[in-house]
């Protein structure tokens, strides 16, 4: 039954993806993209990837839709030109598709417990998590300890994107108009009382939930990324309701950027401390003398915090960079 659900969701996802590509109105395309992300997230959930489903919903369906809309507001929502060189593109994609489909027939079937993927390192992760880390969420254990170096890299990728967006559109737009979204112009959705009230009611819940996802990530789906994205989503909601300027007066842009850099430094700092205490980079065992398991848990909590801070700070920096760019 649940498998049939999966097939159904994927069929809807393919239809939606075609809709995204064909939509002449970019705004409709972005909306459909949001649906696509939600459908993919639900699929991931059915495939037992709860953490991924949470991330895809928060990041894919939430934050990236908001960013796309902010960019559309700055760049126009109609697709004007017709696509060119259709034939060539079709040939390229058909050849790619044919090759890959040809190869699929030798792939292990979905859910096969004897597939090579399930044999080699996967059982080890369960054993070692039980033995050396003792937290129930194995995904979190792999993410932050066994492959913590990848996660550090990922945090740095997010940080890099933040630097890039600020570098490109962080400074005020080179236009004559001074402080665009302030002054006598109504900003945000301030004058729409019902939305404003209902929206603001939701904010504390989202924040609370973000903290739950952050600090309960060792026991249930979640962790730094998802928490950071949810935290950012709450502040973004506030910014949309009350106007970006108001939101920025509460959390100024330099603070956001400091969060973005500080989280990465916290993560890297944990790695360096491990080195100073005589271990390898990110080898949390050495953090607490006499209790390697406790040390692992301590390290994981610290670096997850770093991840959450960087993701929240960076996503907010990026959002405000788009939102306060002079709209012309």
């Amino acid at each position, binding site marked *: 039954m649940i498998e049939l659900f999966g097939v159904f969701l994927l069929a809807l996802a393919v239809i939606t993806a075609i809709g995204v590509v064909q939509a002449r109105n970019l705004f409709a395309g972005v909306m459909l993209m949001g649906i696509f992300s939600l459908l993919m997230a639900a699929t991931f959930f059915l495939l037992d990837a709860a953490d991924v489903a949470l991330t895809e919903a928060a990041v894919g369906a939430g934050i990236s839709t908001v960013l796309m809309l902010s960019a559309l507001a700055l760049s126009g929502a109609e697709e004007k030109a017709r696509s060119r060189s259709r034939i060539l593109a079709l040939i390229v994609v058909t050849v790619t598709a044919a090759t890959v489909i040809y*190869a699929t027939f030798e792939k292990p079937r979905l859910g096969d417990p004897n597939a090579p993927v399930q044999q080699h390192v996967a059982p080890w992760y369960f054993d070692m998590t039980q033995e050396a880390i003792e937290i129930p969420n194995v995904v979190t254990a792999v993410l932050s300890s066994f492959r*913590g170096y990848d996660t550090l890299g990922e945090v*740095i*990728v997010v940080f890099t994107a933040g630097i890039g967006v600020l570098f490109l559109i962080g400074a005020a737009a080179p236009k004559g108009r001074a402080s665009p979204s302030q002054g006598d112009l109504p900003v945000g959705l301030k004058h729409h009382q019902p939305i404003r009230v209902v929206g603001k009611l939701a904010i504390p819940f989202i924040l609370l939930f973000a903290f739950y996802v952050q600090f309960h990530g060792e026991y249930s789906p979640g962790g730094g990324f998802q928490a950071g994205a949810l935290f950012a989503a709450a502040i973004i909601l506030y910014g949309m309701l009350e106007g970006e300027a108001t939101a920025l007066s509460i959390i100024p842009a330099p603070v956001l950027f400091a969060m973005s*850099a500080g989280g990465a430094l916290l993560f890297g700092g944990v790695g360096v401390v491990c080195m100073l205490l005589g271990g390898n*980079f990110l080898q949390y065992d050495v953090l607490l003398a006499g209790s390697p398991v406790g040390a692992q848990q301590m390290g994981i909590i610290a670096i997850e915090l770093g991840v959450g801070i960087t993701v929240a700070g960076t996503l907010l920096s990026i959002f405000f960079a788009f939102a306060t760019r002079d709209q012309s």
Partner: protein
Amino acid sequence: MSLASQLPALQVAVPMLTAPLVALLRDSHLSWAAAFAASAMSFVLAIAITGQVIGGETLVYHMGGWAPPFGISLYIDELSALLLLIITGAATLTLLAGRGSLEEQVGEARMPLFLAAWLLTLAGLAGIVVSGDAFNIFVFMEISSLATYILVSGGPQRRALTAVFKYLITGTVGATFYLIGVGMVYMMTGTLNIADMEVRLAEVSDRNVVYVAAGFITIGLALKAAIFPLHAWMPNAYTFAPHIVTAFIAACSTKVSLYVLLRLDFFVFQKNLVDHELQFAYLLMPLAVIGILYGSIAAIFEQNLKRILAFSSVAQIGYILLGASLISVAGFTAAVLHFFNHALAKTALFLAVACLGLQFAKMRLEDLRGVGRSMPWTLAAFAGAGLSLIGVPGTAGFVSKWALIGAAMEKGAPGAALVALILFSSLLAVVYVWRIVEVTWFGHGGEQAKAAGGGPITEAPLWILTMTWVAVLANFWFGFDSSLPMQLASSSAEEFLRHQP
């Protein structure tokens, strides 16, 4: 644990963790000093690592203390060490030389962010080179790519934006192709560690998936390495980036993708796929040959100095690929030598371009007519590095071309054709380098063209000129005494070829 055993992690961690600090600094002088310190520190670390591996020893470092294939391990052999030297050396030299040029082209206000991106590029490239884990390579590829997009987008003309958008699309498609390939190999082997993949792939009986995976990885990395015919993003990205950025990335960024391609092909696929070494050679050798010819000829017809050099890079990547596709110790040695020597030549050439850039807004040849009379030292440096690019005896370029000719000779009759090709393309290189030299030294009428400042054209400042000459003299030094790159190249060739069936 001793400091020496931590070197591999420090090589990545130093620039990566200095970057957030640099970004936080408000002052452009301070951030430059911090960025330069981290960059120089990386160079020192790379030298120390080279000292450790040069005897043929391989450094393996377990991240987080978890042994492979469960954790991520770093893996440094001689080829990695050589690339580390190239990356950190180029980053340090260009940063040292290019402060004035960067301040003019990027602007002082955005300098801290720009320098953070510079360090992240360095960290990303170093992270790729030292990694022994296929997925980890993807992560660091994305760090270096995103940071490189930022660097390129700092170019002063608006066309930098369109160039960087194309670069972003191509780069992301390439990285995603690579990820698909890695995913398929992982699916069949259950491991992400490169050394472990080699072992476990031998036991896989369903080969079609692995062939398709090898195809995805090759195409993805070829896109990122700008191998002909997938180089379309590269000329514009090089041309419209700030000059100093071009000097940095031309020296190393495409080479690192090529390095990953070679590492996966030789270490993972060639031993395990029937006749893969032939397919590799038959597919890539023609591309290399066409790439060499196409790049050289396109360079002859270009009007913009930086585009000429960019197309020359397409050709030079062809040389590296040609050497590797011979699948012999001599050929691979030549390829690795050319990694090093081409980086030397291109860094020097683009630094000379940066010297010119302080006087000229555009790099069109017609504007540069006769500029050699006002900027003799700059243009002399350009000519000197040009000799190395051509491969004139006595320069570093000659050493690798000579090695390549020697390797081709081993192949009998088809080898002779390759030798002819190499000689012919060197003649083409003479043509496009001479064209620049002729216009800049003997042309007339360029002086009236707009200088950036409006005043008379004067020689570039002493500092950047000195650094340019350091790079040029390095070309001659390594042409005279090539024992260090030669030793690293030949022993890494032996190690790579040991993974042959």
